[in-house]
């Protein structure tokens, strides 16, 4: 669990920043504004990806050859090959030139193009995070609305308590315990990886194999993250339920269930959905520990590995990709929120 998740959770009721424009006529200006922001963020990310990681301690050439018999000329040749013998400024210009051509350079440790590496590792991370997010959101929203509707019931107390306990756990610790139980003691699920290597499965057996491998990492991510969706949903529904229009709706003779489904839940979904959007970036970053525990071949772990060395091209590449995903989802979240905010559309 990352720190921002928590802060954002405590931010529950206040999802959007307080910019006050509400008229749809200002929508375009709002989008333009946000686009400028996105552009600035992206430029900052590119700048930072280059310079920030240069302050990391460690000599990439020395790290790469650690523990192996190497001689001076080999070290010098490597340094030259990586371009590390050039002045920093020249290196930066070369980096920019390559970046504009879509070339992210070559990883020091893997001796392969960074873009290839990212392509290889992106899918597993997206698979893991989207499946986890989908389950966590569905579960969270369902539990949250049910708990809110029956506020104070045993279901409410139990589900809120459970959610809080899971939410308090260090992700890696919970993952490890699942691993010990299901892979270590019961032997019913594999101990790591994404597919059974060498099995060359296709079709349904492949899917089943994938699901078996997904089970534990997804369970870990869902357990630790569904709480916030459930608590947010619960809080906003409770708030919604005290609104006057619900009393009106009830007075019209609608059943409780209909009131809930047709009126309260849709309105309460709004802030929750926004939070969900804002969390997507955090979810990807949060995959680092889960990927480590379950040997999941994903981008989070790749980034973490790249910090040692440091493998500068790989770090720069993953950082740019990670941050861009987050910037763009945040942008999308802003747009979506503006678009579906009833105070905007009904104005």
């Amino acid at each position, binding site marked *: 669990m990352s720190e921002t998740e928590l802060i954002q959770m405590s931010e529950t009721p206040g999802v959007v920043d307080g910019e006050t424009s509400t008229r749809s006529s200002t929508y375009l200006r709002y989008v333009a504004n946000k686009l400028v922001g996105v552009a600035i963020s992206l430029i900052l990310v590119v700048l930072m990806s280059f310079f920030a990681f240069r302050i990391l301690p460690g000599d990439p050439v020395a790290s790469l050859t650690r523990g192996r*018999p190497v*001689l001076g000329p080999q070290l*010098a040749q490597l340094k030259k090959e990586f371009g590390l013998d050039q002045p920093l400024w020249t290196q930066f210009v070369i980096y920019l030139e390559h970046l504009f051509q879509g070339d992210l350079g070559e990883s020091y440790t893997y001796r392969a193009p960074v873009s290839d590496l990212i392509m290889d590792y992106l899918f597993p991370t997206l698979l893991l995070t989207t499946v986890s997010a989908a389950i966590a959101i569905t579960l969270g929203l369902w539990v949250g609305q049910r708990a809110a509707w029956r506020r104070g019931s045993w279901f409410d107390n139990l589900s809120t308590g459970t959610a809080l306990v899971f939410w308090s756990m260090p992700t890696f610790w919970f993952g490890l315990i699942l691993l010990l139980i299901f892979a270590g003691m019961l032997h019913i699920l594999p101990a790591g990886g994404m597919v059974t290597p060498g099995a060359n499965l296709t079709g349904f057996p492949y899917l089943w194999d994938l699901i078996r491998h997904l089970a534990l990492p997804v369970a870990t991510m869902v357990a630790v993250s569904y709480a916030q969706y459930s608590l947010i949903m619960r809080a906003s529904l409770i708030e919604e339920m005290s609104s006057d229009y619900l009393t009106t709706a009830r007075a019209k003779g609608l059943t409780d269930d209909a009131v809930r489904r047709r009126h309260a839940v849709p309105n309460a979904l709004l802030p929750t959905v926004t939070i969900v959007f804002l969390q997507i970036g955090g979810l990807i970053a949060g995959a680092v520990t889960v990927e480590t525990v379950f040997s999941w071949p994903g981008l989070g772990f790749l980034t973490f*590995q790249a910090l040692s060395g440091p493998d500068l091209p790989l770090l720069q590449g993953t950082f740019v990709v990670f941050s861009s995903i987050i910037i763009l989802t945040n942008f999308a979240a802003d747009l979506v929120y503006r678009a579906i905010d009833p105070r905007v559309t009904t104005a």
Partner: protein
Amino acid sequence: MNPFTMLNQASFDLAQIQYESLVMPTAPDGADGPGLAEKWTVDGNTWTFELRPDLKWSDGEDLTAEDVAWNYNTIMTNPKLAISNGNLGDNLASVTAVDEDTVEIVTETPQAINPGKLYIVPKHIWADMESPETYENTEDVVGSGPFVMSAYSRGVSAHMKANPYNWRGAPKLDGIEVISYKNKDAEVLALKSGEIDWSNRLTASQFDSLAGAANIEPVETGGGRYLGLSMNVGSTTLDGTPMGDGAAVLQDVVVRKAIRQALDTQQLVDKVLNGHGWTGPEILGPPTKPYYSDYEDIVDPYSPDAANEALDNAGYTKGADGYRMDKEGKPINLRLTFDGSGAAEPQIASFIEPWLKEIGIKVTLMPQSIDQRDQERHSGNYDLTLNGWGNPIDPDYMLYINTCGSRAPAADGAGNGSADNWCDPEFDELYKQQHVELDQDKRTKLVQDALSIHYEAAVVAVLYYPAALQAYRTDRIAHVTKIQNDFTAYQTFHDLTLVSQEEGTSSSSSSGEGASWPWIVAIAALVVVAGIVTIVVIRRRQTATDRE
């Protein structure tokens, strides 16, 4: 897995089963034995290797002396292809194919190390490439080793298929699966549940826990690695310019010896290694036969009292707080840097601090990342640091990194290959002599004399030599030949080769037994420097079809 430019451990591990060299490490102690070459002779600077007759590559082409000569000449002339093994081409004058089965290697100066350790790749594949340095070499690899890579999934696994043309005969097993685990615990669980069949580079706790497990045989072999407490003797660059910020007090050999004498290294073996290792005085440990010596007549045995007395006599008086002061009366406070990310080094540091407190020396613990620790060490910015080296079976490199010439060219520490930034011309002289000495007994004596000087200088307090710990499933693997272990991967793969070979040669009845198993698998797991773990599965040919 480009054998010319590979740098990470996983690539080396994979290269080791795909390519062979003229000479190869051989059981039980890993000494140079026949590889592609059946026999060889040395005459001064000239080494002549006789290749085995009728060697073939995995694609069926002939493997000839021409291939061997091309490989050596390539790393000697193309610096871009000398990244991985440039050190092997360092002292070579010429390499020529005398005839189809004879290679002649002429060195510039005589050397005791056998030059025949370069992995040979097929000339007919590599010679015509436009830029061989960028070739990834992960599909349909052509090699000479028992297995070659046939499929590869980055960061996940590699499938290695048997090479029927291997000179030992076709492996009995159909293929090997190398699997990457990022979490060692998960790997051990996988071994226990039978998902994998071989795992190595285990920790002591994991190893001990596997000892009682069903169908699992733990294997402990000698390691060629030492871990020591390096003391900054006053680092200098190649031209003797002082560099770094080491504490002046450590330039006094009395202090260094006292520190070494205050360390109860046996306790580290017992507690940190759970007894899976050895302790000894110098950088070559007991597994490094025949060069190991206990240096009985010069060793200072563990004794905090003697250390205290030596420091008292040398004029390092204790202050009111029980800590000593240097000769100017300033309190001594030594920084101890170590790799804070693993298990062993933080534990060791927590022993060293109180031990040195016993002799009145204050230590400040400074955990660092392994990269940072190395960088500071290279530029001489440390007082005490935990530093380990794994050596190939031959001691030459272990001595080389302690010669004056391996120090940093400039004060930024870049290109520094020195173990401890130490320099002693007398040591260098002995290093040079053993480097060219071909008589084993004389060379052993020279190596031990050199290390006696190293011991007297108290550059590093050797703490222990960890054993190499592995485990395999007995329901999959019939037999393992132990080779004196150093870079574990190196051995494991050769072990594996031997396993499959011996299984095959034992008798044809073993395949009858095999039929009763659904499939027979052997697995090796390798922790890579970066922390990636790999596993190997070997599958029996017939049974692979059974499963379909």
